[in-house]
């Protein structure tokens, strides 16, 4: 009868742990997908829609569900792609579209007719104005997503390069031959690995 003891002990143990896990999954339940949230944290939050999804969160959800590729975030660039690849545990891929230099929207106020269409389009609520009053953009909050360009009926919005600030200036990578060779080798290597997986 000795052989029954281990069976009973382990059955009881399994029962206790099973109940514990069931209770834990019920009481410590996390709303939303933690993986999608982590990915969302990596994205630049421009809400530009260049990835084909209506915002950063939907794209993060799609990537987390393996529905979208990891290389669609244009403003995030290579750094974001590598970080996503790291978390998703997949091979890095080449970025299809190069990110442009950072821009902000600027409204030519003389030409603005006050239609409020751009205000409705702005994903981060950084355009202020009222009907029949000219609108203006809070440059500090503009993500440069260009979503306000399309609805404007009089084309009075320009995308201008973000002004370079002295306090945001940083040293470039040293211009020695060795540093440049290393950089070249890196890009070459990425090109090869990218072609393999596309």
């Amino acid at each position, binding site marked *: 009868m000795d052989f029954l003891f281990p069976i009973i002990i382990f059955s009881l143990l399994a029962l206790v742990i099973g109940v514990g896990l069931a209770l834990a999954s019920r009481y410590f339940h996390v709303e939303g997908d933690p993986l999608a949230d982590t990915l*969302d944290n990596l*994205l*630049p*939050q*421009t*809400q530009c829609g260049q990835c084909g999804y209506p*915002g*950063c969160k939907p794209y993060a959800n799609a990537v987390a569900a393996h529905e979208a590729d990891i290389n669609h975030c244009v403003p995030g660039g290579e*750094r974001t792609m590598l970080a996503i690849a790291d978390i998703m545990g997949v091979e890095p891929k080449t970025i299809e579209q190069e990110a442009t230099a950072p821009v902000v929207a600027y409204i030519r106020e003389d030409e603005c007719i006050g239609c409020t269409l751009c205000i409705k389009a702005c*994903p*981060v*609520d*950084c355009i202020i104005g009222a009907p029949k009053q000219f609108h203006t953009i809070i440059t500090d*909050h503009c*993500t440069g997503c260009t979503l306000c360009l399309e609805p404007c009926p009089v084309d009075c919005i320009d995308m201008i390069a973000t002004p*370079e600030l*002295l306090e*945001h*200036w*940083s*040293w*470039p*990578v*040293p211009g*020695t*031959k*060795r*540093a440049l060779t*290393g950089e070249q080798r890196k890009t070459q290597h990425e090109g090869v690995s990218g072609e393999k997986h596309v």
Partner: protein
Amino acid sequence: MFDLWDKIQQSLHLKSQRHFTGGIVHARQYKITAHQPIITCPVPDVLIHPIKQHIGEPCEPLVKVGDRVLRGQMIAKAQGYLSVPVHASTSGTVFKIEDHTIPHPSGMGLPSIFIKADGLDEVDESLHPLPNYRSVDAVELRERIRNAGIAGLGGAVFPTFIKLVHDHHNPVETVILNGIECEPWLTNDHQLMVEKAHEIISGMDIVLHLVEAKQGIIAIEDNTLDAVEVMQKALVDMGLTELIRVQVLPTKYPQGGEKQLIQAITGKEVPAGRLPLHVGVVSFNVGTSKAIYDAVCLGEALTERIITVSGDIVEKPANMVVRLGTSMRFLLSECGVADFDNLKIIHGGPMMGELMSSIDVPVVKASNGILAMQRQTIMQAHHEEEPCIRCGDCGDVCPAALIPNLLAKHCKEDQFERAEDYQLFDCIECGACSYVCPSHIPLVHYFRYGKGQVAQIQREKTFAEESRMRSDKRDARLAQELAEKEEKRRIAQEKKEARAKALAEQEAKKAAEEVDAPKTIENKPEETS
């Protein structure tokens, strides 16, 4: 010479037992301006005052084009806490306010106030001299030091008044006067100590009074022993030997670094990311001390500073008193430089200084030295980077006890998180590692690149976080609007339905009444009867 040194040590018990980790020793021969008396640079016709000459927030101009200003008049006022004002260096007229290149490695500009000097050099008398500073309120003294525009003149230009606080929870035990001129070529602090010992010690006394410290230490390296003698003598003359003493330290670069000096003198290490106040120390440069004396006892704002002008193309290298805002081109021509096409200038010392893209930059509060070098010399000093041979020399000389070769590798490969794990931000950019590297790896350049990138990533992260918050709030607002619309529609629908129902009921009632009508008529006679 060595006998003399030993004698001084024995007689004064000055020999320091402590030292900081790492460091290098430079040859003395580059200090070509040593023992040259300080001369005064004439005031140029045009002075350029950038609105930010300190670490912190930029100032706001107080003058308009066409205004007449006097020497020492505040022309831009401090904004925010971490800020000190800017003063006109001579009397004259403001003729334009626009962006001008500042002494910065980026070659970028800042809004600057241009003054056309009238040659009268009239002084603004708004700051009254306070010779009896011991009876003046500490708050007023601090305000005076701030309003005189004083920031650390050793090169870091940290607003001085912030350091001069007496805090009961964190009392200052020691005030260290930094008389160490560890950069090769530069001699301005040394010469200032030799010539203005009394003023410097008075300035230090003001600081001791403000922070209520028990002792003051004047730190001087053993390659400037004449300054030690002068300082000793001045202390005896002023009767301050009880309070302040001179400590001689063996010459080593970068001993003038704040944290290194504190370690060498007190043996305490300032923790990463903390101020020297954390270990009960306040330290400042001899030039700053002189400026504090001028501001408090003479009522003069900071309008000039002492600069070493040196370099292989300079015919008359000198230690000079220069008005802030003087163009470096003017300064160099005063020192006998004629050929401006074939030179590069370094702002600061050769170890930590930065190559300027233009020579038309003004002298600012941070300018402790200007080195004008032939283009050729700079080109020859540049070597091609070779592979790291892991000799470990960089780690031996690092005063912050880092591993520079590994740090540089991580910065080079854009692995900034790892670089941060290896304490990238503890690097003081002294350049000792690059100096000793046999493979000529520009280590400090890699660290500066890494630091800039980390800051950039951090900024992007903060911006993304803000954008997400704004986007989430917008989504919530839209959802709420939609819900409100839905609610309104529902209410309208309900009302409509209710009205329809009421109508239907009414009609039903009417119909019923019509049916009931004969009944009532029939009943009527019964009621009447």
